[in-house]
């Protein structure tokens, strides 16, 4: 816990990380926070935005090829941030999400980046199918869109130091459930929810 507290404090001083909630969150419910992904600070910033009592139960999903790369990153991500590491490089999609399924079954909330990788743009690119499968398998879990503003300017892909540019985290209302919705439509709607928060 102290690691994530220390890291979030550094982030607060450096880039401000103010959270703007569209409406007061119902933190008693299990949630999947899904966000646009532009920097290595994204996960930490969302954790920093959550109220302290909600933070305990939230597990970020992170890529094993980066966050498990060496002992240091692995310690930070797993011990410090309580992350679930997934292996992006493995072939079959089904196995890839397996660790997330376990975590959701255990009742945790998660932080998930549906693009699957960092982008250089202010707006998210096309979503991969992962979010759709999570939503189908766990229909009772709230899907909460999060827009991370300015993070792509503070620490763009390929740069190693963040600039002190004020970054804002806009957290929207949970996505409405639509039974029997087709995958492309669902993914488009989820992406639109983030784009709407950016305006």
């Amino acid at each position, binding site marked *: 816990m102290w690691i994530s507290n220390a890291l979030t404090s550094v982030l607060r001083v450096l880039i*401000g990380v*103010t959270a703007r909630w569209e409406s007061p969150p119902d933190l008693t419910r299990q949630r999947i926070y899904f966000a646009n992904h532009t920097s290595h600070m994204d996960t930490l910033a969302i954790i920093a935005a959550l109220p302290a009592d909600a933070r305990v139960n939230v597990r970020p999903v992170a890529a094993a090829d980066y966050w498990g790369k060496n002992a240091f990153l692995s310690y930070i991500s797993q011990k410090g941030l309580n992350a679930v590491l997934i292996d992006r490089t493995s072939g079959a999609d089904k196995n890839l999400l397996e660790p997330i399924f376990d975590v959701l079954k255990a009742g945790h909330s998660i932080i998930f980046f549906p693009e699957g990788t960092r982008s*250089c743009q202010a707006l998210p690119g096309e979503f991969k199918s992962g979010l759709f499968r999570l939503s189908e398998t766990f229909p009772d879990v709230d899907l909460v869109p999060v827009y991370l503003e*300015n993070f792509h*300017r503070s620490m*763009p892909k390929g*740069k190693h*130091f963040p*600039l*002190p*540019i*004020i970054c804002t985290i806009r957290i929207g209302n949970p996505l409405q459930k639509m039974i029997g919705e087709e995958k492309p439509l669902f993914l488009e709607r989820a992406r639109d929810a983030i784009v709407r928060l950016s305006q």
Partner: protein
Amino acid sequence: MMLETKFLWFFAGLVGLLASASLIGHVLASRTKTDNAMATVENLNQRVNAWWGMVIVFFMSYLLGGNATVILFGFISLFALREFITLAPTKRGDHNALFIAFFVLIPLQYALIACQWYSMFTLLVPVYAFLLLPAIAVLSQDTECFLERTAKIQWGVMICIFCISHAPALLMLDLEGFKGQNALLLFYLMFVVQLSDVLQYVFGKLFGKHKVAPLVSPSKTVEGLVGGGLAATLIGGCMFWMTPFSFWQSLMMAFVIVVMGFVGGLVMSAIKRSLSAKDWGTMIKGHGGMLDRMDSVCFAAPIFFHLTRYFFSV
């Protein structure tokens, strides 16, 4: 008068002023009925509370000594530049240049003040940064809007680092018969600038009818400017006892500070508008961002510094 005596009088006066402002705000809050007036009074009280905070921070930095004051202004520059760059659209190609601006230029500029290297302090940003920042940015080979981006960064660095640093630079002046009391001059500058802002706001709210520059800053009125500006000039003149100036000299200095402060507020407002924002940030409750509070200081500090240096230094 001794330094400590002057200092105590100054802070006693300041605390008295803030206490009466808090009292007035409290009375107003219990008397207002309409929603519109309540919003104004709430904003007023937030502003007064923020003033308490700012005065306490300055008081602490004074007690901790000159270097603490220099470090405090270093952080003010950091927060100001952070707001400026957040609103000014820079690109990925500017990353390294901005990194240098934030993490090398700011510490360096204030270190130069701390070690009293006057010539380098005046040259660092207008000469070295002016030439080296674009030289670093050009390495990324992004030519799209290169001139605009470079100009924006240079403006931000000039305003937020160079100009603001002239306030604590007062501490390194060697003034006739004023040895060891330069901190008072810094307080004098900050007090007159901010008092002028506050009085222009108060006079504007009470008597304001004709707008000075409605397209740039809808809240500035002729009545506020003249009434508040003259009152601040007069009060500044009467504070000559804490400066190396006579009454008339102090009156002239205060007048220059008020005029520059007003111009600074206007120019920074125009920049803000051209970047389509209402406030620079949200750091100081009731006031907006750091730059909303420092905009007048940015313009007043360098001129006040050089006038004082030219006419009064040994």
